[in-house]
C-alpha cells in the first residue's frame, strides 16, 4: 500500500462528514497520529456495528447512536454528547431576512421555487427541519415545495446555485458560504436538540475524546461554528 509509514498506530475516528474542517484542525495538534474517516451517520453506524476498526465514533444523529447502543456495539463504553449545532434558514446572498416565518411567509418567499433541505427521514438536518416546519404547522403546505437531498451540503449547493430559493441547513455550513445569507436562525426549542453524540470504542479513542473536550479543541469547534457541550465529567 502506498501509505506513508506511521510512527505508531494511529487513532482512527469515524466522524460525521460535516465535522471535517474542525476535526482535521484538532487532529493536527494531537500528539499521536489521528486518521478520520468521514461519512454519513447511518453508513458509519452500520460499519461500526460490523466491526469497523474505529477507536472513536462521532455521529450527527442521536438516533443512530441509540441504534448502535441497541446493537451492543458500544459495550460499556462511555457515550457523550460532544457538540451542538443550529439550524438556519438560508436564501441567496442579499435576500431579505425572514424572521420567524410561518407557512404563508415561507410560501411567499419561495416565489414558486423550492425549499432545499436534507431528506426528511434520512438526513439528520432534514429530520430537524421537518420537526421545525411541522411545529409551526407549515409542513403540509411546504411538503410539495421541497427539494430533499442526501446530505446538507447538497441542499446548500442548490441554494448557492440559485436552483432552490430557500434552504434549511446547519449554521456551520451557511457561515462559510458567501453566496448564501442566513435569513433566520431557527430557535433551538423548535426541533429536537441538534447534538453530535460521540462514543469511544477503545482506550485510544477514549483519550482522543478527552482531548476533544479540552479548551483548545472546544475553541476550534467554536471557530467552525459549532457549539461545544460541556462534557459531563
Amino acid at each position, binding site marked *: 500500500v502506498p501509505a506513508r509509514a506511521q510512527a505508531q498506530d494511529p487513532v482512527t475516528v469515524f466522524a460525521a462528514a460535516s465535522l471535517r474542517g474542525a476535526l482535521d484542525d484538532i487532529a493536527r495538534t494531537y500528539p499521536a497520529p489521528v486518521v478520520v474517516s468521514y461519512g454519513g451517520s447511518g453508513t458509519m453506524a452500520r460499519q461500526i456495528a460490523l466491526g469497523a476498526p474505529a477507536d472513536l465514533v462521532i455521529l450527527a444523529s442521536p438516533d443512530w447512536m441509540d441504534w448502535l447502543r441497541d446493537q451492543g456495539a458500544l459495550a460499556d463504553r462511555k457515550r457523550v454528547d460532544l457538540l451542538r449545532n443550529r439550524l438556519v434558514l438560508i436564501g441567496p446572498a442579499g435576500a431579505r431576512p425572514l424572521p420567524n416565518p410561518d407557512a404563508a411567509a415561507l410560501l411567499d418567499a419561495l416565489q414558486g421555487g423550492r425549499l432545499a433541505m436534507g431528506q426528511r427521514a434520512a*438526513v439528520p438536518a432534514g429530520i430537524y427541519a421537518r420537526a421545525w416546519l411541522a411545529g409551526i404547522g407549515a409542513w403540509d403546505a411546504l411538503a410539495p415545495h421541497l427539494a430533499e437531498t442526501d446530505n446538507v451540503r447538497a441542499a446548500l449547493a442548490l441554494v448557492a446555485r440559485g436552483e432552490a430559493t430557500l434552504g434549511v441547513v446547519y449554521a456551520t455550513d451557511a457561515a462559510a458560504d458567501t453566496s448564501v445569507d442566513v435569513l433566520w436562525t431557527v430557535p433551538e426549542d423548535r426541533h429536537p436538540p441538534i447534538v453530535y453524540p460521540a462514543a469511544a470504542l477503545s482506550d485510544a479513542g477514549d483519550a482522543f475524546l478527552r482531548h476533544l473536550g479540552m479548551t483548545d479543541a472546544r475553541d476550534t469547534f467554536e471557530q467552525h461554528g459549532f457549539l461545544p457541550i460541556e462534557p459531563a465529567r
Partner: protein
Amino acid sequence: MTLDAASWDALTLSLWVSVWATVLAVPLALWIAWLLARRDFWGKSALNALVHLPLVLPPVVTGYLLLLSFGRTGPIGRLLEQTFGLVLSFRWTGAVLAALVMGFPLMVRAMRLAIEAVDPRLEDAAATLGAPRWAVFARVTLPLIAPGVLAGAVMGFAKAMGEFGATITFVANIPGQTQTLPSAIYTFLQIPGGEAQAIALVLWACVVALGAVVMSEWLARRVARRIAGS
C-alpha cells in the same frame, strides 16, 4: 415485497425515467459509437474522453456538473428553458438526463465494439448494390450490430435503474417527481431499522432490471440463431 405508496411511486418513476433515458440515449449513443468506430476527425480523442467522463467521475461530481450547466441558472439550462420551455432541474426530465449521462459511456462502448466487429466488406457489398450510406447503415450495419445495441441499451437501462449520486445531486429527491428507486432505497438505509423496506425495494429493482437483462439475452439469442440459420 409489498410496497407502500411512496415506494410504489419511486418504482414506477424509476421505470419511467429509465425507459426514457434508454430510448433517448440509444440513437445518440449509436451515432457517437459509429463516429468513434468508423470516422477519423479532429477532436476524436476529446469526444472519446468526454464520453468516458461520467464513468471516471464520482457520480456526485457528475451531478454537480449537471447542476452547473443544466440547472436553471446554468448556461445550457437557461437556453433550454428559453427556447423550448424545457426545465430539467427538480423534474423527472432532469432525472432522465442524469440517468442518460451516467449510462452513456456503457452504451457507446457496447455499440462501438459491435460496430467495429462488422466486416466492412459487407457494407461495401451493400454499396455496390446501390444502397446509399444511410441505407447501408440501416439495412446492413444496424441489423448486424443489433446484439451490441441491445447489450448497450440494457446496460444503460440497468445503470439508469441503479443511478443514485448524480440524480439526487442534480434533481434532489422529490417524492413522486424525482424520487427514484435508489433514492428511496438510500432513504430507508439511513433510517435505523429501515432495512426491511430497503430490501423490498432492492428486490424490485433486481426484478425489473434483471428481467430486462434476461429479455435482451433472449432477443440477442434469437438474432444469433437467425444468422446461424437454425
